[in-house]
């Protein structure tokens, strides 16, 4: 019996063949913390008596959630990470000067390589699976354990193989593929399991879309999402000074899957997840028919804050105006994306249309700051979660979509077709 790509990555790290269900302790290539989860890890690290990180180059802290500080408490919280980073002389510490949302920033910096085992104290760490790595979210204590020992324990997950086939229609993206999958299997449809994305649709999907797709694996309860390396991955990596040599693994033809799901996406429309679960997906046609007025449109986050998102949004709003009762907030995921979007004129087109373009931050996506919803307000957002109260007031409502639909909705003032 063959092995899946995930089993192969774990086998390579464990130094022996391991299979789904085995519990292994393996070294970790990159451990990621952020401003809200790392302080608890640092506390646990100190309590363990440790003085030095076991693998300093394999640890990163990205201040992205509430930075630039939204209040005194957030400033004090960030200070804990800053002081730790300076004390440890950390190479991979990303503060305001160099900021970005962790799951966009690390791949951009070449800090994730194919074949890596990556953990982060952030549930959307699964994003990095788009580079053919095993990547999963954990809590702060698990992060601390990795800081002290350089590794952690894992139960090698079973895998669900998801085969997407067919050519995508215009304005249908990786975001729509994952929303469609979650619509079909539910928010716990892949609990504890890895999602392996494959098929001819994936073969033509650009990296931005692949990151969006893997990003929301957690929204189906999955431990990880993964796409094997191909020429599109290699091209993305070519321009980077990679921290580690890529190791390409591929699932064997006779690998064992717990389930195989085939989805023909030839006729798939953009998918809109209605409140209050990412699994509550409906077609864009239905959403347009439902005449859903929106108070706020948000384009950004680790799901959809990349250059192609900003580009498509700017092209859709260019020369038009955001509806009078609607606000459009655009948050590029990294400083580099913001810089490129500025150079290419995207930022100007957005601002001219009435958008506010912010610094990179996770802020609005999790109801932290920079775009909080008022009581009973309705938003369409390119983020990953539409839970009750996620972006603000408990009575507010969030519809999730791709960036093109969000931009068109800002102009129309209601959910609209791009």
């Amino acid at each position: 019996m063959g092995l899946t790509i995930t089993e192969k990555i774990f086998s390579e790290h464990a130094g022996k063949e391991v299979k789904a269900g085995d519990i292994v302790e393996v070294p970790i290539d990159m451990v990621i913390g952020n401003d809200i989860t790392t302080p608890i890890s640092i506390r646990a690290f100190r309590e363990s008596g440790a003085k030095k990180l076991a693998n300093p180059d394999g640890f990163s802290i990205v201040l992205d959630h509430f930075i630039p500080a939204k209040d005194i408490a957030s400033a004090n919280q960030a200070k804990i990470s800053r002081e730790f980073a300076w004390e440890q002389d950390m190479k991979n510490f990303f503060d305001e000067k160099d900021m970005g949302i962790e799951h966009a920033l690390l791949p951009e910096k070449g800090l994730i390589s194919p074949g890596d085992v990556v953990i982060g104290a952030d549930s959307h760490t699964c994003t990095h699976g788009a580079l053919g790595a095993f990547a999963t979210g954990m809590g702060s204590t698990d992060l601390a354990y990795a800081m002290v020992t350089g590794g952690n324990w894992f139960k090698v997950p079973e895998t669900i193989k998801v085969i997407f086939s067919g050519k995508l229609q215009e304005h249908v993206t990786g975001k729509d593929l994952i929303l469609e999958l979650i619509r079909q299997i539910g928010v716990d449809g892949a609990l504890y399991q890895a999602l392996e994305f494959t098929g001819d649709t994936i073969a033509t999907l650009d990296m931005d879309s692949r990151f969006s797709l893997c990003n929301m694996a957690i929204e189906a309860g999955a431990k990880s999402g993964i796409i094997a390396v191909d020429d599109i991955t290699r091209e993305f990596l070519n321009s980077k000074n990679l921290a580690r040599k890529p190791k390409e693994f591929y699932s064997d033809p006779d690998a064992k899957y717990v389930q195989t799901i085939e989805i023909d996406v030839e006729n798939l429309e953009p998918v809109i997840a209605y409140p209050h679960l990412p699994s509550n997906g409906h077609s864009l046609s239905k959403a347009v028919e439902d005449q859903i007025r929106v108070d706020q449109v948000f384009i950004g986050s680790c799901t959809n804050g990349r250059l192609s998102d900003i580009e498509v949004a700017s092209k859709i709003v260019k020369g038009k105006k955001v509806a009078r009762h609607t606000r459009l907030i655009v948050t590029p995921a990294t400083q580099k994306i913001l810089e490129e979007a500025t150079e290419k004129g995207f930022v100007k087109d957005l601002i001219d249309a009435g958008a506010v373009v912010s610094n990179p931050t996770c802020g609005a996506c999790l109801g932290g700051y920079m775009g909080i919803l008022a009581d009973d307000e309705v938003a369409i957002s390119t983020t990953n979660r539409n839970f009750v109260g996620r972006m603000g007031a408990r009575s507010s409502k969030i519809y999730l979509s791709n960036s093109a639909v969000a931009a068109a909705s800002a102009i129309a003032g209601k959910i609209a077709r791009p």
Partner: protein
Amino acid sequence: MSKLEGAVWKFGDNIDTDLIIAARYLNTSDPYKLAEHVMEDADPEFAGKVKKGDIIVAGKNFGSGSSREHAPIALKYAGVSAVIAPTFARIFYRNSFNMGLPIFELEEGDEIEEGSKLSIDMDSGSIENLSNGKSYKFKPIPEFMQNLITAGGLMSYAKERVENE
């Protein structure tokens, strides 16, 4: 291990970590401040009503969403002694063990009514509803996790490593 006893609070399916502790309160990791806002978006009065030792009985996929360890911390410091659900989201499951919030997988939780008194015997793996005498067996904790608990939690392994260096 010992027995846990407390009154039941019921919640539905997919109680996510934003409901357990909203991100607007994550500008601190002070456990008592987090506890003041526990379950706020699921039941705004919960933090005021919950008493030390109380037990949450919820629907499937409890703790879904973010990896914030603040969620089990808020529950624990609000006095919640255990959470019972048919299934738990993976990261929450692991976090709860790591920070010492007992959680139990039980399919028949929907039979248990709010306000019932439960007694959980962690050694025998049983849950007794003291209000009506019914008893249940919770799904055994995986052996690996049991060993982890016996050893005093994940960070005790880390301490051992540091001391042996």
